[in-house]
């Protein structure tokens, strides 16, 4: 057990690292844990071909200057014990850690909407493909399409391009009118505008099809071509890799297990006050876990919540105004990239919804009633290793309201698959 921290932060992305910097500046003892081997989160994921992003370098060097701040990369939070004590797992063993306050900055994951052929080898999440490329997976010369919705498609395309991929096109399901609406007000957020301009400059040669989506993927052993449509005409586009993603859903599992209040809907976020405080005393949240709004918002929220968590009111108050403004950007984003009806209903009866348990849509349609628990018990949807993180959100999108998702109302450990010896506790079982 490692004990004696003033603040334990889960997640070393923009929100978590900013929170750590605020709390360290206030002279507190801080621990940051993250299951990735290096800090940075999704957006600043380590890329050996380029220099680390400037804000990340600054953050890490600031944190290094505080002796009392410790990073635990390669450690995944799998459960809580009373206290709450955090139960962490690494490649080699388990660790328990405790602090006065806890700040969750666990980010978000991609939302997938199933379509025929979406389980073919060669199809990845848009962010997943970006991470693979950064990790050194060879994409040079390969024909890639990105499809779905939201700014992540552009960010992923830019990375892939830099790694030598041939981007055949980007398909954005949002119609041109929504995108124009988005652009029209974007200048209100100068940082976000600059980021968008930088991306567009790198992508100016890449076709960007608005109001378009993939209806089917085909191939023998792996992806060979996709069928795309703008809602009127279909056409076939050959490609080897497809990165898809229909936006992001907050990673609320840890917060939910601790009983934090959530927002309504099938992809809830953690409800926080203006200083990142959740409904549970001593528990803070910042970044995408509180709602999707990009890295700029996440950094501000993190800085603010980190200061608030260790009681540094001056620092926190100073950030309040900017944080509110960044908050509005999240709403702006959601409004203009909302999902249209057609992309929700692309799956056919034989299309697999749950990859872990290989459950096709037809099996789900067989179950009478709208009880999500019966559905799960009888089809096993969501019962595999990913614990429903992908399929249950996809399922919710295909269903008409109201659909009561029981997996939200009865959270249970472990948060991720965890070794029996980890859960058996420190005194029991052969721990390395």
């Amino acid at each position, binding site marked *: 057990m490692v004990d004696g921290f003033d603040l334990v932060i889960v997640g070393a992305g923009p929100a978590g690292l900013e929170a750590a910097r605020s709390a360290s500046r206030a002279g507190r003892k801080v621990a940051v844990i993250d299951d990735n081997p290096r800090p940075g989160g999704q957006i600043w994921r380590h890329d050996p071909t380029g220099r680390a992003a400037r804000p990340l370098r600054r953050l890490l060097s600031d944190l290094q200057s505080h002796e009392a701040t410790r990073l635990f990369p390669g450690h995944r939070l799998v*459960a*809580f*014990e*009373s206290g709450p004590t955090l*139960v962490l797992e690494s490649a080699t063993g388990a660790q328990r850690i405790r602090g006065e306050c806890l700040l969750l900055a666990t980010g978000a994951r991609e939302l997938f909407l199933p379509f025929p052929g979406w389980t073919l080898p060669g199809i990845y999440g848009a962010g997943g493909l970006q991470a693979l490329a950064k990790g050194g997976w060879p994409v040079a010369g390969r024909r890639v399409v990105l499809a779905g919705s939201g700014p992540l498609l552009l960010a992923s395309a830019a990375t892939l391009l830099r790694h030598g991929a041939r981007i055949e096109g980007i398909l954005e399901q949002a119609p041109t009118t929504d995108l124009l609406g988005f652009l029209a007000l974007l200048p209100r957020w100068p940082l976000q505008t600059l980021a968008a301009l930088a991306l567009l400059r790198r992508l100016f040669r890449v076709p960007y099809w608005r109001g378009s989506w993939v209806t089917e993927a085909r191939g023998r052993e792996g992806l060979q071509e996709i069928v795309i449509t703008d809602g009127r005409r279909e056409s076939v586009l050959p490609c080897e890799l497809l990165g898809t993603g229909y936006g992001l859903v907050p990673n609320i599992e840890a917060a939910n297990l601790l009983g934090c209040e959530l927002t309504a809907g099938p992809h809830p976020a953690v409800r926080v006050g203006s200083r990142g405080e959740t409904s549970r005393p001593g528990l803070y949240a910042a970044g995408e876990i509180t709602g999707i709004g990009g890295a700029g918002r996440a950094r501000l929220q993190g800085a603010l919540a980190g200061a608030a968590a260790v009681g540094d009111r001056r620092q926190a108050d100073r950030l309040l105004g900017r944080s509110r403004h960044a908050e509005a950007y999240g709403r702006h984003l959601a409004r203009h990239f909302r999902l249209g009806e057609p992309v929700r209903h692309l799956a056919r009866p034989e299309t697999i919804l749950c990859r872990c348990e290989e459950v096709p849509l037809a099996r789900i349609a067989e179950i009478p*009633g709208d*009880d999500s*628990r*019966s559905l799960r*018990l*009888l089809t096993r949807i969501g*019962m*595999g*290793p990913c*614990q429903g993180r992908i399929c249950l959100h996809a399922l919710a999108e295909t269903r008409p309201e109201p659909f009561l998702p029981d997996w939200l109302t*009865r959270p*249970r*450990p*472990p948060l991720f*698959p*965890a*070794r*029996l*010896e980890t*859960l*058996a*506790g420190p005194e*029991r*079982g*052969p721990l390395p």
Partner: protein
Amino acid sequence: MTRDLIVVGCGIVGASIALAAQRAGLRTELVEAAFPGTGVSAAGMGHLVVLDGAELALSARSLELWRELLEREPGLSEYRRTGTLWVAENGTELAALARSQDRLRAAGVPSELRDAAGLAREEPALASDLAGGLLLAGDGIVYPPKAVHQILSCALALGARIRTGQRATALTGDGVVLEGNLRLSGEVVIATGPSGPELLPELPLVPRKGHLVITEATASPPRHQIVEAGYTRGLHAPDGLSVAMNVQPRPTGQLLIGSSRESGLSDSEVSPEVLAAMLGRVLRFLPGLGRLSALRTWTGLRPATPDGLPYIGRVPGRRGVWAALGHEGLGITTAPATAELLVDGILGRKSILDPAPYDPARCLG
């Protein structure tokens, strides 16, 4: 509206009763407050086991009935005949298993005793310091949520009916009242699992909470359901926490792991402390499982009676009301013999089992 028989509650017990009743020619209507099979039946391990002790006769008869049902409906409920391997930690426990074998033999249930070497041959993954074991080759496993639905489907195919999402709120003397004041008349069976006391407060019933863990698939799962001999001690420990190693190989290669018992708790929270104690026990017997990952955990409430036997029979002091409650940790197994006893009772037929030990009258003040 009148039916011959109204069964309140569609867990494994209610569904089995509906099937037996409909087969016997009784027009049956099930009333289920939520959805079929989402009560304790969904939480259970689905181990079909002949249990030496108070429930020996009921469980042995049930296994015969399960096998009959499975012959008629092959593939039902993902059934596998895994057998049960009871494992003794020391000589005392092994001697107890030998005595258990005598009682099983007297009840017509075959079993085979194993010494330490024989045990290791059955399951090489077991710890090497164990004394031996007892193998019951006739035991098996099912997937309970499916079992409920498939038994229910058989009953519906024979003409039974079901109302889902409708809670019975009171007994009227000639039937039940449902939410929204709908009245149904006929003989009534209460098969509401742990909610028994809501309609029949005179029958003492306490919840006994249990935890379960399911793992990822393993390349070399055990062949049998493996249970430590000490398991039966926990059955009779009235208070506090008791844990025992109980490991079931699922058809997918995953392991379903139990078990824990805590009396008087009625929440559904997973407790890390109980998990730790339970898994510590499992690693004591199967030390090689430490690095296998748990995917999910959950809890369920076993409905327990003071003497460990279920209530099966007419409820004294009430007209036309029957109880099928209190199946504790063995209701998946004992549902078919429960249904047989109950329907025989309603029809006034002589039953294969003696109904007296299960008569609810025994626990009325």
